[in-house]
């Protein structure tokens, strides 16, 4: 009991010291708390601005009361500024080619009649997916407007009317990994905080010579490493919570799936990034090297190859293969699955298993490397 108590006391003292380091350094404070907020705001507002001023064209084949009402609803929202009425399908290509119109809505013939008689009617939404992000957002907005309208008309009717939107992404049919900023930003931030900050904080001790002192002390090497890593696990989790809260409350991003699963997967990814951070610290002698290795070796691939900005499916084969060995790729897929699609482990078990495997691999490797360095 005494031994355990002693160990615990030492450990708490160590963690306390670590927090002094973090809170007394303005740079790390900025990276820890300024960056996530700044990034989310930047990405968030850049995207919402784009959607505010979009032109759409409408092909209304039935021109009845219901279609008019829907068109009014759509026009009265802030997302679309100009609307252009077109008369037939042949004009669609032309309006798109002009470039201003980003989406075309097509109401089928006898819309009201079908809705009343057959209880369902169809609207086709065609978006210009050369800008996949805008295209996806437009279709989401339109869908949500339609869904709301449907709920209104169904309020006092027994058999539900169904308006079925058919979405078609023109010009970029392979719209598998649409750039959705929250999962990407979250991945980057967690990578930055967990891997870069830990590797820097460990190499800092090496540079100052305090690591030597710690290793000569009765603390065991793994206690030193765990002591260095635990504060960053804690801060990374806070960051993840802040990012999710900001996206939910400021940008109204729906988290469809289980928050618990989201949290568990994030902890897994954080541990993965921390192992990478320890690995980097074993090969770097100075803080600067650690920072460069983290930026070039981790951050760049995460930005470019993980599907955060560029869709993996449109990369050359070699880059696609490389992307599969980046842990962030799998974490982004998991995040998108949970946040945007609302799927659970039943679907994401494969990605989770891969991420788990990678985590174990990097952890074992970093512990081995660390031991070799001690020799």
């Amino acid at each position, binding site marked *: 009991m005494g031994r355990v108590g002693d160990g615990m*006391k030492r450990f708490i003292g160590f963690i306390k010291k670590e927090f002094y*380091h973090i809170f*007394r350094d303005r740079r790390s404070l900025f990276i820890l708390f300024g960056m996530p907020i700044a990034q989310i705001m930047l990405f968030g507002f850049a995207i919402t601005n784009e959607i505010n001023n979009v032109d759409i064209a409408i092909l209304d084949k039935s021109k009845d009361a219901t279609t008019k009402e829907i068109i009014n609803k759509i026009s009265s929202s802030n997302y679309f500024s100009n609307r252009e009425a077109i008369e037939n399908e042949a004009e669609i290509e032309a309006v798109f080619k002009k470039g201003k119109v980003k989406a075309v809505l097509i109401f089928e013939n006898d819309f009201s009649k079908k809705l009343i008689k057959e209880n369902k009617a169809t609207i086709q939404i065609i978006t210009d997916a050369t800008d996949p992000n805008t295209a996806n957002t437009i279709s989401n907005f339109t869908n949500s407007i339609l869904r709301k309208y449907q709920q209104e008309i169904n309020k006092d009717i027994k058999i539900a009317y169904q308006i079925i939107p058919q979405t078609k992404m023109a010009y970029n049919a392979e719209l598998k990994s649409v750039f959705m900023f929250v999962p990407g930003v979250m991945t980057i931030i967690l990578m930055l905080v967990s891997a870069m900050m830990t590797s820097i904080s460990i190499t800092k001790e090496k540079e*100052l010579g*305090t690591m030597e002192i710690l290793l*000569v002390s009765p603390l065991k090497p793994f206690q030193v490493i765990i002591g260095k890593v635990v504060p960053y696990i804690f801060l990374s989790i806070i960051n993840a919570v802040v990012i999710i809260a900001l996206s939910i409350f400021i940008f109204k991003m729906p988290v469809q799936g289980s928050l618990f699963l989201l949290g568990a997967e994030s902890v897994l990814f954080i541990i993965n990034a921390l192992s990478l951070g320890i690995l980097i610290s074993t090969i770097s002698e100075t803080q600067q090297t650690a920072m460069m290795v983290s930026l070039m070796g981790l951050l760049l691939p995460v930005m470019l190859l993980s599907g955060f900005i560029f869709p993996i499916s449109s990369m050359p084969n070699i880059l696609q293969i490389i992307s599969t060995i980046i842990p962030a790729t799998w974490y982004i897929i998991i995040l998108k699955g949970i946040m945007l699609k609302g799927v659970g482990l039943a679907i994401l078990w494969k990605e989770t298993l891969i991420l788990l495997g990678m985590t174990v691999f990097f952890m074992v490797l970093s512990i081995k490397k660390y031991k070799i360095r*001690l020799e």
Partner: protein
Amino acid sequence: MKKTNVIKAENLTKMFGDFTAVNAITFEVKKGEIFGFLGANGAGKTTAMKMLIGISTPTSGNSEVAGFDVYKNTEDIKKNIGYMSQKFALYDDLTVKENITFFGGIYGLSRTQIKEKRTALINELGLQKVTNELVSSLPLGWKQKLAFSVALLHEPKIIFLDEPTGGVDPITRRQFWEMIYKTAYNGTTVFVTTHYMDEAEYCDRVSIMVDGKIEALDTPKELKKQYKVASMNDVFLKLARG
């Protein structure tokens, strides 16, 4: 009055691949002795010291430090030794008080012990006014003394000093050696590496390493007599030039 040996090394060897960094060194250090461990850069001083302080496993040979085996009982060795490097490694962004508390804590001292020792140490070094200042604001000489005292906080049997006076002025060096004398007088063995030859004269006994081997080991007086020179500096030059 027979003094016990607190460090024993017998054919202690460390190899990195084909390169022999430390080549079968044999020596003993007595309790309360100030033992100078000299050698040019790359002679193997640091490697030898790392084996003695339990952070590097020897390739072959035997050694006991503070009565514990360097292969099996590194944990016990670590509890019984103190260590200070040439970087006077303290945490710059922690205050004097926080540094003392932290290092006391990792050596497992209780809160009351830490408090008592901290007060005593601060009074002894005359640091009362800067207790709550960050260590980064202290002059180098003060940092050095603080680092030394912190390394002695857990009352180790042996203190290892790795070039402890690098980069400080002669007066501070002088004061620092007074601290070393006091420590040795109180029964703590001092194992010190240095490349200031005038400092070698202050040691009770001196060993000089050349290319991984101990080429000379005796009191400064005997060494000077043996090599028929006037100073330790000349002894060193004679040895290093072969």
